[in-house]
């Protein structure tokens, strides 16, 4: 590509927040009608680059060095007043979180008219209204007038993201900077939005700088890819070559950690487990029969669970899968006796769970522990790691003090947390480390059953791979029984033996992982499976 014809040309860009340099010497170019994907783990500097291009770093005390040219014009040295006309009219921006990117107290129409007013040559209100309506129609919103009259909270995430795209393309920009435009949206909606961006790019010849953490999105939607780590480029080039023949070790490692690309990652561990703890003749550790629960609030009634049943034999992993709000956590909480059921029974280790009997629950929880989804709120910020892990032992008065210390040390070692972290508080740990602490706490009592409620969905792929490995190893060594909750079928395929697919509280499908993946019976399951990133072609390296 000829750099001079590039829409956006970034050359040796450095950005630092105070003393910390977070972008180091990044260069790339986006041409007319082309899409360039910027990928990298969290904190690698993707959003910072986007903000530097749009000059939105103003209020953040950031220092920007290097050159950014838009249609051949250098913009880093421009005064604010000179840059203003470029915003919106040349450089459009599609933000990550549609829910928070529109002013909640003003109607869509008011904000759209404001955007229309910035388009040169639109004098009359009627003209602006026409512009707004046509832009809303262009992004596929069927009732533009109703949309315009609504407030943001009255629209769905997908609708809002469409509105935001409409507002971005309304002044006719040449380049769209889209910072993770779909990661806050549901799988099905994601595809539609990405299709829309593709369409706009082709039809209007707009260049797109697509920022994403999703390798599949990058692979499917971008012409070129730039892989960032820690603010510097690890690899860059046409999408095909980066994905089929990654040159840098980082990119290769990244690929290896993506569950969808490596379905058999834990196959070895699981085989060993099957040897040590044969499935045949294993008793049922968890037996859930026909549980139902309906939540009633003043506003509405939600059926969280409707006649759900599943069983887990000792030493095996059962996955609960489904979209957000499908009732997965409610089932998990029911198992722990944290939620009363309207109907049905739950047995753990052959004993029925009775939420109304505190002493029985206490006894139950010696053998049944949970690891929560969010490692940032599940640890008391005022306790040290050592104390967090020891707490259940103290409370259950397991052995003497020395024995408890020993047991805690064992648990920390089992999750491979270095000894030196024992005196830290959660605030001083990374997300992955915190989640390990949470698992260690659950392990400390040496329970038989662990409920894992999306234990890795808040974490990076690399970190996720590490945690899953720890869990698989523990299962192999101790014969633990897992109830594994996830919305990521890629992970489920790697990690679970059997699964139940939930939708609005109802069981859609259940069976062994192999069966369900091979022949999904329901459309819903098929949609979920198809959302696992690019298997065809790209994943061959696994």
């Amino acid at each position, binding site marked *: 590509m000829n750099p001079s014809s590039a829409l956006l040309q970034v050359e040796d860009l450095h950005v630092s927040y105070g003393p910390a340099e977070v972008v180091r010497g990044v260069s790339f170019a986006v041409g007319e009608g082309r899409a360039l994907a910027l990928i990298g783990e*969290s904190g690698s500097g993707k959003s910072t680059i986007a903000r530097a291009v749009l000059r939105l770093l103003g209020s953040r005390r950031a220092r920007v060095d290097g050159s950014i040219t838009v249609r051949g014009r250098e913009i880093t040295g421009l005064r604010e007043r000179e840059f203003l006309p470029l915003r919106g009219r040349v450089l459009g921006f599609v933000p990550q979180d549609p829910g928070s990117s529109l002013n909640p107290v003003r109607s869509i129409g008011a904000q759209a008219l404001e955007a229309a007013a910035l388009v040169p040559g639109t004098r009359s209100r009627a003209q602006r209204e026409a512009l707004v309506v046509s832009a809303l129609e262009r992004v596929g919103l069927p009732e533009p007038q109703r949309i315009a009259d609504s407030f943001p909270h009255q629209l769905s995430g997908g609708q809002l993201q469409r509105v935001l795209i409409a507002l971005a393309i309304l002044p006719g920009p040449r380049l769209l900077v889209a910072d993770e435009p779909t990661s806050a949206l549901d*799988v099905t909606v*994601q595809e539609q939005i990405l299709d829309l961006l593709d369409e706009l790019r082709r039809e209007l010849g707009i260049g797109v700088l697509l920022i994403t953490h999703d390798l599949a999105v990058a692979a499917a939607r971008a012409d070129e890819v730039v892989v960032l780590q820690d603010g510097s480029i690890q690899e860059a080039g046409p999408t095909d070559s980066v994905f089929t023949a990654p040159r840098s070790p980082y990119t290769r490692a*990244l690929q290896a950690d993506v569950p969808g690309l490596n379905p058999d990652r834990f196959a070895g561990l699981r085989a060993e487990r099957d040897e040590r703890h044969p499935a045949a003749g294993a008793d049922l550790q968890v037996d859930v029969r026909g549980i139902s629960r309906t939540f009633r609030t003043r506003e509405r009634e939600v059926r969280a669970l409707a006649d759900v049943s599943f069983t887990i034999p000792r030493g095996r992993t059962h996955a609960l899968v489904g979209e*957000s709000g499908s009732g997965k956590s409610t089932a998990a909480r029911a198992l722990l006796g944290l939620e009363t059921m309207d109907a049905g029974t739950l047995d753990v280790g052959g004993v029925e769970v009775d939420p109304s009997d505190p002493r029985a629950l206490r006894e139950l929880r010696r053998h049944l522990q949970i690891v929560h989804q969010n490692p940032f709120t*599940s*640890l008391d910020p005022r306790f040290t790691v050592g104390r967090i892990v020891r707490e259940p032992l103290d409370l259950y008065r397991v052995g003497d003090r020395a024995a408890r210390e020993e047991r805690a040390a064992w648990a920390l070692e089992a999750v491979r947390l270095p000894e030196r972290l024992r005196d830290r508080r959660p605030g001083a740990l990374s997300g992955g480390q915190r989640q390990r602490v*949470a698992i260690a706490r659950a392990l400390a009592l040496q329970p038989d059953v662990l409920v894992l409620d999306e234990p890795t969905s808040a974490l990076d792929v690399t970190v996720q791979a590490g945690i899953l490995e720890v869990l698989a190893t523990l299962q192999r060594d101790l014969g633990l029984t897992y109830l594994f909750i996830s919305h990521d079928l890629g992970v489920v395929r790697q990690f679970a033996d059997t699964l139940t697919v939930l939708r609005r509280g109802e069981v859609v499908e259940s069976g062994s992982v192999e069966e369900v993946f091979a022949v999904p019976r329901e459309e819903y399951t098929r949609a979920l499976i198809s959302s*696992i*990133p690019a298997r065809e072609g790209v994943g061959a390296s696994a």
Partner: protein
Amino acid sequence: MSTAVLTPGLRAGAQPRTAAGARPPATVLLSAAVILLVLAWSIAPGLFTGHDPAVGVPDDKFIAPGAQHWLGTDHLGRDLLTRIVHGSASSMTSALIAVAIGVAVGGALGLVGGYLGGWVDAVIGRVVDVLLAIPGFLLAVVVVTALGYDTRNAAIATGVSAVAVFARLMRSEVLRVRTSVFIEAARISGGSSTYVLLRHVLPNALRPVLSLAVLQFGIAILVIAGLAFLGYGDPPPASDWGLLVSDGREHLLHAPWLVLAPGLVIAVVVLSVSRLSRHLDQGRNR
């Protein structure tokens, strides 16, 4: 729902803290110095001045601030700085009493209401609403009337008028903490209600309450000074700061330092206290 590959959603919070241990800003250090000085005044006033706070040299009345008397003298020839220094103990203790009452009573109400919920919370909530509805200063005046005029009672009155604020904050903090996942985790780890309340809920809810307490300390100084100004504090020759302003006020025309000096001391101390409180509060959010 997304196929999370690289972390979505998590922001800067995911990064381990790096700025920990950085030195606090200069204004905070200065504020701390001011407060330390005033504390030193309260504990050992004799170290800071050689004059007698109650008995002056009547012939030296109304000497303007200068080398001999840094802040001048009052209508009975007493050194004003000495009186301010000696008045600080009473001003500080009374503010402390006020805050202690606010924290203890308000904190307990908020803790119990927030944790137990239900009708207990409803009853406590109404009481707090009522306390909140009566303008604080007015409430303090009413209470001090009922108790009798002196500085201790003014302090108690000020404390009573602060109960509602503490109760509200404590309640909302308890509600926030109570719904945290780690509270549920503690229950699952086998903790009883009381254990969870005292070991997890209270310590985590306390921090903002303490930073409010520091702020309220400054406000209490102002309220007590206001009460003293209106004559609801100790009688002369006590030298509570508010009383000094109130006394000096008669001489505003010809000896303005008698008003300005104690008034500014109050302002500077309260400003320092509130700066410190803000700093503590930021520490929590960082």
